[in-house]
């Protein structure tokens, strides 16, 4: 489509779509709240050690290590440090930063406490990540008198119970609430009612919209859409054509529409994948060590799949070499499984495709993930292999026994022998 034609359509749509065309907020208007903890991991460490306050603090791999930082507090961010940055780069940008090692269990516990607090404010709470959640506050606001009073009550409860601060965004949809919570950080409260969405968010670049990644941004930029306002004013038919229903709904939501949230607040969110990554302390050339590490990772991933009652089918191996070249290869299994031995055999074969010991290329990081998750017994359209069923039953009994031992005596109590040399890696992180 020619640029001039696109512009003409945009202008035409701009005339047609006036702002504030949706119902103003009322007692039962759809209201979504997004709660986002401020620099969560770093804030917990500062809370537990007040001498860290007022200093640049990062949580992640130790100083001088090869890991990455998972959180930087706001002072460290002013030096350009951010989550995902390598420790080496962080050291270079801010040599005085205090590095605190990640304590996953501690943050998970505080996150669980946070979700319990939020459930006092709405029966529908959707944990979005370890430090973020959406609340469906529809019908709850009148209990507090106003949106402001509701938001402030949440912030007070978080502060009182956890001694941490949260930024809260309130809007007519999840996407608006999430943008709102990010507008006034830290310790902020942003309320965007449906009739003011376009005017408040209009000037923002489209990349600020959650879910608009580089690919969507590029596609919209090609249509001469750079800001939220331009998105709102764009012809719906054009957005529908280029982005499908998602594009149309996105424009409606950014215009302040209520009731178009394609994803309702879910009390329980299904996982899409289970995975585990590990950065070696020093680059590794030894194939046996890499195999051992991968087996241990397969066991961890499968244990979490069994615990959460999932079977998976799409196995991905991630491998990063010493020069930061990252390879990611995947294979789809014939059948769904949670058996670490089956998954490990695929991972080994994927490793052989991307890396050979004799080439002498050192490995920095390995990761294993399993996607295409289903629940056992869920229809999946593929005929089960009846010859495998008996073998699987025996294996399942074995792994259930192993899980029971680990539940009782800890994660390192028992495991496959070949995975033991590298069990409990120091710089590992899990994702789901």
């Amino acid at each position, binding site marked *: 489509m020619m640029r001039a034609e696109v512009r003409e359509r945009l202008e035409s749509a701009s005339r047609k779509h006036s702002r504030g065309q949706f119902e103003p907020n009322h007692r039962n208007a759809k209201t979504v709240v997004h709660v986002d903890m401020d620099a969560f991991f770093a804030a*917990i460490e500062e*809370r*537990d*050690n*007040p*001498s*860290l306050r007022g200093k640049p603090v990062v949580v992640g791999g130790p100083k001088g290590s090869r890991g990455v930082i998972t959180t930087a507090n706001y002072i460290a961010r002013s030096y350009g440090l951010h989550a995902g940055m390598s420790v080496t780069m962080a050291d270079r940008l801010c040599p005085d930063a*205090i590095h605190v090692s990640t304590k996953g*269990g*501690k943050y998970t*516990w*505080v996150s669980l406490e946070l979700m319990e607090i939020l459930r006092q404010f709405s029966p529908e709470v959707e944990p979005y990540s370890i430090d973020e959640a959406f609340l469906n506050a529809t019908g709850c606001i009148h209990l507090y008198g106003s949106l402001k009073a509701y938001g402030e009550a949440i912030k007070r409860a978080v502060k009182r119970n*956890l*001694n941490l601060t949260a930024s809260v965004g309130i809007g007519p949809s999840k996407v608006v609430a999430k943008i709102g919570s990010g507008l006034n950080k830290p310790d902020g409260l942003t309320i965007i009612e449906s009739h003011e969405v376009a005017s408040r968010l209009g000037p923002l670049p489209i990349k600020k919209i959650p879910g608009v990644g580089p690919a969507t941004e590029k596609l919209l930029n090609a249509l001469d859409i750079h800001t939220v306002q331009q998105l709102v004013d764009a012809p719906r038919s054009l957005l529908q054509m280029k982005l499908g229903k998602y594009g149309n709904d996105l424009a409606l939501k950014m215009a302040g529409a209520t009731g178009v949230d394609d994803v309702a607040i879910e009390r329980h969110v299904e996982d899409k994948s289970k995975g585990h990554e590990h950065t070696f302390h020093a680059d590794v050339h030894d194939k046996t060590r890499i195999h051992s590490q991968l087996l241990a990772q397969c066991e961890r991933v499968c244990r979490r799949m069994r615990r959460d009652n999932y079977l998976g089918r799409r196995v991905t191996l991630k491998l990063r070499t010493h020069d930061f070249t990252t390879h990611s290869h995947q294979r789809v299994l014939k059948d769904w499984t949670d058996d670490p031995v089956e998954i490990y055999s695929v991972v080994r074969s994927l490793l052989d495709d991307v890396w050979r010991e004799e080439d002498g290329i050192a490995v920095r990081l390995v990761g294993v993930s399993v996607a295409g998750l289903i629940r056992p017994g869920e229809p999946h359209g593929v005929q089960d292999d009846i010859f495998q069923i008996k073998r699987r039953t025996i294996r399942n009994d074995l792994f259930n026994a192993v899980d029971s031992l*680990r*539940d*009782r*005596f*800890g994660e390192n*109590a028992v495991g496959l022998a070949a995975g033991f040399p590298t069990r409990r890696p120091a710089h590992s992180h899990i994702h789901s």
Partner: protein
Amino acid sequence: MRYEDIGDRIELIALFRDGRINPLKFRWRERVYRIQRVNGEWVSDQGQTRFYHFSVMTTGPDVYELTYNSDTRGWTLSRVCLVG
């Protein structure tokens, strides 16, 4: 500021009330420390054993991490952050 792992068993007086544990004072190496402030608390599990962790401060700026083992019902001074 530096962290030191300790791992010493300690004697501790705590108030167990309303499902919460509130540590009040502890004895470590023949000296009694009165807890002035609990900075934060969290829980970890190892098998069926649950550990309750407390970050506390006494009269000085140092931070003490105390751990209660629900299996042995004993207290440990896990580590100290020495400030200054």
